[in-house]
């Protein structure tokens, strides 16, 4: 029952976002840790995607990426819960505030699923200005099905709504009014990420070939590299949600996590990211 209520609230949060914070604050999910804040020398922070709850990480055997990573690598998992309908930038700011409250000597790894990867990216960009001590502790970032290049479904919706707006029909107007209620978080997904790409941090990208929400091109946009890139993995036959709880994906994350983060980055990563502010300048 609790899971059902949590799932309903997460959908509501994702759909209405800031409107919930302003008008129905009791239903808005504040950025917080699930349970107590993680404690340990090396932490791994899990950030889920739009309209998800932390149950998205649960694998068929009941374990999750965090539990397995702790068992196999010693990384202590911390699961973040937040209102996914708020603008990505605001969630990034809140995530950074959460990270600043962690023990000052703990190393930080991140696994972001879908929008979660954008929130991490935004938090790390903000950390350059506001919390360099946090940024210096970041070991690696893994993005799973993250729409770094934007989500085509939101762009399609925008196009359809522009057409609907021109139709002189009461039902079409009603559809337009309902669609206009969608959250800032959903709208943010339509555009390539505005946060600068952190070149100095080892970043790893995973995508699924059957992912219609975030196609491979968008999930791997920062690298734009071939399949030989060790920091990029495209999983044949996996859909969007599969990326958050699939044994093969876990195995790849584990391998990435045991790599020496200080090792020399592959040549592809040093390329300017087409979506970053640096490359736009």
């Amino acid at each position, binding site marked *: 029952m609790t899971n059902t209520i949590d799932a309903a609230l997460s959908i509501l949060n994702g759909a209405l976002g800031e409107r919930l914070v302003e008008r*129905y*604050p*009791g*239903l808005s999910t504040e950025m917080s840790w699930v349970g107590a804040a993680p404690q340990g020398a090396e932490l791994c922070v899990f950030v889920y995607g739009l309209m998800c709850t932390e149950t998205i990480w649960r694998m068929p055997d009941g374990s999750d990426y965090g539990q397995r990573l702790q068992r196999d690598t010693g990384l202590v998992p911390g699961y973040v819960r937040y209102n996914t309908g708020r603008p990505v930038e605001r969630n990034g700011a809140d995530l950074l505030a959460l990270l600043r409250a962690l023990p000052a000597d703990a190393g930080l790894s991140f696994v972001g699923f879908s929008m979660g990867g954008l929130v991490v990216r935004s938090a790390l960009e903000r950390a350059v200005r506001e919390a360099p001590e946090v940024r210096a502790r970041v070991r690696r970032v893994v993005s799973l099905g993250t729409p770094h290049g934007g989500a085509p479904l939101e762009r399609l919706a925008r196009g359809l709504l522009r057409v609907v707006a021109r139709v002189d029909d009461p039902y079409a107007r*009603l559809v337009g009014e309902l669609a206009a209620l969608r959250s800032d978080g959903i709208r943010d997904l339509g555009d390539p990420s505005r946060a600068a790409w952190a070149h100095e941090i080892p970043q790893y990208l995973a995508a699924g070939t059957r992912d219609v929400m975030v196609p491979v091109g968008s999930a791997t946009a920062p690298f734009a590299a071939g399949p030989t890139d060790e920091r990029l993995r495209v999983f044949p036959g996996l859909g969007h949600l599969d990326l958050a709880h699939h044994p093969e994906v876990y195995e790849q994350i584990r391998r990435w996590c045991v790599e020496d983060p200080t090792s020399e980055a592959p040549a592809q990563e040093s390329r300017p990211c087409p979506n970053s502010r640096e490359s736009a300048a």
Partner: protein
Amino acid sequence: MSELARVRSLKNLVVDAVDHGAAAVERVHLDTAARPFALGGEAFGPVKMAHDAAVRHVYGQIRGVTRLVGLSLDVALDVVERRRTR
């Protein structure tokens, strides 16, 4: 956030959803009905007026009852809150 605050927010959300939803459906209802009435020209004027008045009355009732229920729930939640803080 307390459980009571959550219930109060949920109540507000449901009241607003019914209120705005009824208003939106009322607009669609009136706009859709206006088309056949327009075909009939001025002869249908009084019929259209009566129809629109009835439609507005019905949707107004829905909104009114919803707000009343909302206010009653507010009072009930206030009572519960006061008892809990005693």
